[in-house]
């Protein structure tokens, strides 16, 4: 799951989002173990404290949990939780930028809707 980091978001947030992506894609299934802080830190060449901070974000939201002495596991219901959260973020993350870019290009609302339709047909 190694990837280059974008500069806009703190790395620990990107770590959390990548784990969420893995949960959504089914790479990490519910009640399965996720990579350890050390594994993530080594594979991404980041400070272990940063990796831990990312995982802790998910612990706080109940998306992963710790099994003492074993490591971190995906919670039951994590897929739904991540989806709900991402749906809430959808407007901020995609729609605002989409509308801004569309205005810059003088695309009408109808044209944008047609493009959305086309995107769905793919």
């Amino acid at each position, binding site marked *: 799951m190694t990837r280059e*980091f974008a*500069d*806009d978001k*703190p*790395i620990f947030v990107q770590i959390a989002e990548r784990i969420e992506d893995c949960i959504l894609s089914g790479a990490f299934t519910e009640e399965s173990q996720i990579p350890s*802080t*050390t594994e993530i*830190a*080594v*594979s*991404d*060449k*980041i*400070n*272990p*404290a*940063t990796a831990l901070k990312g995982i802790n974000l998910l612990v706080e939201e109940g998306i992963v949990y710790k099994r003492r002495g074993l490591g971190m596991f995906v919670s039951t219901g994590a897929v739904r939780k991540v989806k709900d959260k991402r749906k809430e973020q959808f407007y901020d993350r995609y729609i605002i930028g989409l509308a801004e870019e569309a205005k810059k290009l003088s695309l009408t609302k109808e044209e944008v809707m047609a493009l959305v339709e086309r995107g769905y047909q793919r």
Partner: protein
Amino acid sequence: MNEITIQNVTKSYGSVLALDDVSLSFSENHIYGLLGRNGAGKSTLLNLITGRQFADSGNIRVDGQYAPENPEAQRKIFMMSEKNLYPTSMKVAEAFRWTSRFYPEFDRDLSASLSSRFGLDPKKKIKSLSTGYASIFKLITAVATRAPYIFLDEPVLGLDANHRDLFYRSLIEQYSENPRTYIISTHLIEEAANVIDQVIIIKNGRLLKDESRDDLLRQGYTISGPAASVDAYAAGRNILGSDTLGGLKTAYLLGECDASALPSGIEISHLDLQHLFIQLTNA
């Protein structure tokens, strides 16, 4: 208190002031990035801590003990520097053995396994090593000492991309398994930026920044857009520098971004450590 403390340290070479009243500390279990331009005073600072040079004034302590000319304090520190201080006719394996006499915690298994991972032949003489392998030899020695404070001065000098990658991975692995304090001084900031968690910037012999990487990164941002809009927003704010490309202007700013005051048509982005460093230490 487990830390290296540097209090009001001043050092000059003739009329050149190399360090000017510097106070800072390196605390336990962090990876520090010690950054500065050429001649800023980084190596002088490291040389003073490790007793290779002596300060004109000020105080350096390791875990509370006065550090210069104190073997007990110095045993807690290992410094890897550009200079090779081993007899050049010595073989790599001998040098590991030799180092283990000074550093009782020296991990022979680790030096052997890292040597094989990096493809370093322990039977080779130190003088026959290429620049890259000379660095690798010194890095492996440093990490294997298991000293509580490990200084790495330009650790990746001459290493190819694969070996730099392997170095940072090995460093993080070792740090996770055996937390200790690493102080990395490097000009290759981009590669080290995500590895370090504390940043110290020295500029012209003075301490410019000493804080966590995350706190430091939060302070800088860039805005770019039409020059007039950028200037309007930037006026009265802490401007580190700016670039223009035709009518497009990019300004580097320090402080909190005031999103509500941003005119439309302006793009805002974060400054990464390398760019922030460049802007902070320019001129």
